[in-house]
């Protein structure tokens, strides 16, 4: 009996070792999920270290006084509206932004207003131009043309009803 005991212990121990070894092999054989592919690094567009350019022009009858963002984009206005043209730009540097507002009737054009705002931008900026008429806007077709350093870059048409 005493001679069998060590043998039994040895057999049990060997079985345990084999069992653990098998478990380890099983774990090793489990295929780990492939790591999610890392998206190729796409550099964000540089909106600072480039010359100033217009990203978009939005018309509205109301803007946020702090951000100079249009409350809502519009292209039809009421006679009593103040009309805003919000010019969103990217880039940096001293730049003259001009708005040229005109009224169109048939083949005739009348100048409504022409204003310039010179900015020293460092990255994205919002510049607003606004016009109002105390006795109300004549109904009809209008447009505002935006220039950057003398070059026309955007035209927005709108109507007063």
């Amino acid at each position, binding site marked *: 009996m005493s001679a069998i005991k060590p043998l039994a212990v040895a057999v049990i121990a060997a079985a345990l070792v084999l069992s653990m070894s098998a478990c380890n092999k099983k774990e090793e054989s489990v295929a780990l999920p492939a790591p999610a592919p890392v998206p190729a690094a796409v550099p964000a567009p540089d909106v600072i270290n480039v010359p100033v350019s217009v990203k978009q022009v939005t018309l509205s009858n109301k803007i946020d006084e702090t*951000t*100079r963002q249009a409350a809502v984009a519009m292209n039809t206005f009421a006679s009593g509206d103040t009309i805003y043209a919000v010019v969103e*730009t990217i880039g940096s540097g*001293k*730049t003259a*932004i*001009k*708005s040229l*507002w005109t*009224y169109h*009737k048939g083949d*005739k054009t*009348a*100048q*409504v*207003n*022409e*204003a*310039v*705002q*010179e*900015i*020293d*931008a*460092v990255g994205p*900026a*919002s*510049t*607003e*131009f*606004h*016009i*109002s*008429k*105390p*006795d109300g806007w*004549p109904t*009809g077709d209008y447009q505002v043309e935006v220039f950057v350093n003398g070059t026309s870059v955007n035209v927005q048409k709108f109507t007063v009803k």
Partner: protein
Amino acid sequence: MNTSGNTPGDDMPDFSNVESGASSTAKEAAPAYKLYTIKSGDSLSRIAKHEYGNANDWRRIFEANQDTIKDPDKIFPGQEIKIPL
């Protein structure tokens, strides 16, 4: 707020009382201004009266245009000037 100095065309509306302004989130390199073309009979004080409601503000216009106007009494039809907003 400033008013436009444009005169109406033949059968076109009069936009001479249009008020305008501008501002930016960017640092302003210079105050915003309106462009105005001098007409026959204009003087800086007359333009100031129309734009600001006070003829005595002519100096404000003169100072904004010292690169092109050397004598405030000598402005010419067709000349384009800056009117500070």
